[in-house]
């Protein structure tokens, strides 16, 4: 056994404590809303400065530094400023925000009110996916509680600062997790993403006003940054990879689940084989998708080598990849939303590909032709391959379709749809070619994926 670090629960500190409830009394008893008081006693710019110093990177997928995002805010336009919490949690393999929303909603509300104070927002929204029926009710209840305690709404804590908070439900569309698509949806339109430039939300966001969109986990972290101070917070984890992250592990491991660790404190191998209890009996590892289904797949026997940003050279196997932002990126993939999907040797990689392609074909908003048509063709080709109609040239055909989507769309959905195909086909080419001569599944596998 390697020297496995302990989980360090900051965001999920109380969530699974049996004596903890999602009601305000409980949250206040644990020191809740003290940091909102602290933040309001500071200047808004100072709060923003602490968040910048903390180095926190966005937990939604792109990993962009949140403090920097706030800096881009157009404060001179004279237009209202809006804060939006992206609680759409739609990247397959991700189920962390659900734990916060259902079990500790006040942590999110406190984080949001601090953020709203820092950026000068008088109206904030939580855009929550519609499948979280009860989650929306819990949030609304929590907001009412917070308002009656003076932590939200008019004249927060008796000061001039007022900020209302509205829970807005989506309706089952993945594209609403993309921030400009989310904004269109919140405006009551079809969620077709906007082109950047010029529509950077920090300048031209909701109602063409400056808008900050942050992920649930990111906003919760704001509360802890204020508690610790930005400098202190930045000591958690590793440089450029600060704080903890909630990793969501799904697929074929003994103990799938959500685990919060300091960034970079453990490797992908430790996560799979120690934290998650390893693979199911008698199985061997075939592949891992490290950051939600959009991230490029990693092959179990792959080697990754190169030079990190800080100049250190690395030569890793899959199990050696550090779990932070930069590790999976150096290995040619990404940590994305923190959703680790594990596949063992019973998985037919062509079927897995067909499954992923069906998702993207279903979820493309249809605005850009390469994505709308390309994702559909990738689904059709892989589905045909799994129904006895595979041809040797299909691997190259798939790759050519994917390559014609990447970089040719308004939003990053194009990449999200292309990266799985590009990586599956390149790394498991033999499996794709073999499909043409034999429709047999891996030995003893009865698992159906499409």
């Amino acid at each position, binding site marked *: 056994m390697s020297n496995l670090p302990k989980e360090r629960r900051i965001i999920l500190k109380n969530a699974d404590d049996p*004596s903890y409830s999602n009601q305000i009394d409980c949250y206040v008893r644990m020191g809740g809303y003290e940091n909102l008081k602290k933040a309001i006693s500071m200047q808004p710019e100072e709060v923003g400065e602490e968040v910048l110093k903390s180095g926190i990177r966005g937990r939604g997928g792109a990993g962009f530094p949140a403090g920097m995002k706030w800096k881009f805010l157009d404060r001179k336009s004279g237009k209202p400023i809006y804060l939006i919490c992206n609680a759409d949690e739609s990247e397959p393999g991700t189920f962390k925000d659900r734990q916060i929303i259902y079990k500790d909603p006040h942590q999110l509300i406190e984080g949001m009110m601090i953020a709203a104070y820092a950026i000068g927002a008088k109206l904030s929204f939580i855009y929550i996916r519609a499948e979280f029926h*009860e989650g929306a009710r819990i949030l609304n209840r929590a907001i009412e509680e917070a308002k009656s305690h003076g932590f939200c709404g008019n004249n927060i804590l008796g000061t001039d600062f007022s900020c209302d908070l*509205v829970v807005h439900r989506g*309706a089952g569309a*993945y594209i609403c997790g993309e921030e400009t698509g989310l904004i269109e949806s919140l405006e009551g339109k079809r969620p077709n993403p906007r082109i950047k430039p010029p529509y950077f939300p920090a300048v031209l966001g909701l109602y063409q006003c400056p808008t900050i969109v942050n992920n649930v986990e990111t906003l919760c972290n704001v509360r802890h940054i204020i508690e610790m101070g930005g400098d202190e917070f930045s000591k958690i984890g590793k440089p450029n990879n600060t704080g903890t992250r909630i990793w969501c592990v*799904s697929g*074929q491991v003994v103990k799938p689940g959500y685990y919060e660790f300091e960034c970079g404190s453990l490797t992908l191998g430790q996560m799979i084989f120690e934290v998650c209890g390893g693979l199911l009996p008698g199985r061997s590892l075939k592949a891992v998708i490290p950051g939600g289904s959009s991230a490029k797949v990693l092959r179990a026997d792959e080697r990754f080598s190169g030079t990190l940003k800080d100049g250190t050279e690395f030569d890793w196997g899959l199990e050696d990849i550090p779990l932070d932002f930069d590790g999976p990126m150096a290995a040619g993939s990404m940590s994305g939303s923190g*959703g680790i999907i594990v596949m063992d040797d019973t998985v037919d990689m062509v079927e897995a590909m067909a*499954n992923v392609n069906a*998702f993207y074909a279903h979820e493309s908003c249809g605005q850009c032709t390469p994505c709308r048509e390309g994702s559909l063709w990738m689904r059709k080709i892989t589905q045909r391959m799994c129904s006895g109609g595979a041809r040797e040239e299909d691997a190259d055909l798939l790759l050519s379709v994917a390559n014609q989507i990447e970089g040719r769309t308004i939003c990053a959905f194009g990449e999200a749809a292309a990266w799985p195909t590009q990586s599956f086909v390149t790394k498991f080419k033999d499996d794709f070619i073999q499909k043409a001569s034999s429709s047999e599944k891996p030995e003893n596998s009865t698992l159906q994926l499409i």
Partner: protein
Amino acid sequence: MDNQLELSELTLSKIDEVIPKYPEKRSAALMVIHLVQDELGSVNDTACEWIADRLGLQPINIKELVTFYPMLVQKPWGRKHIRVCRTLPCALRGSYATCKTFEKKFGVKEGHVREDGEYSLEFMECLADCGQGPVVIVDEKTYENIEGERAEKFAQLLTDGKLDDSEEFTSYEDSLIKLPES
């Protein structure tokens, strides 16, 4: 107003309450559609016209939302609507088999409503509970690890009307309700 929509006082008051929360009326479209669908089970053309009128929009502005979003429907689902997650993490834990079991047990193909209107089944994209797949949502409650024989048992309890009393299947939502501290 020409078009008539039978909505309860409660729904109407919720609609009145939600619209002013937004700086622009149109923003309330999704929330109003949800409220209408929650009561009527679907949003047909008459409902689109009524909502559009209420928000000062054209009916197409509402209909284009109803036809876009997967969870909005123009025809109602069954009295019990069962959703099974199809996406990769759940599929890796056997959701395709779960869906087939349900098709058999409930007597309805996925994507359809049973003739008597009792059950409908939907094989849906990611429900964001991937660590405990296959994930199943019955109306508004989420059930985890519904695979193999458990799926058979789950379907049986549901058809017998005994799911709510079952200790083996507690929904994610119900598991949050804790006993008061002693």
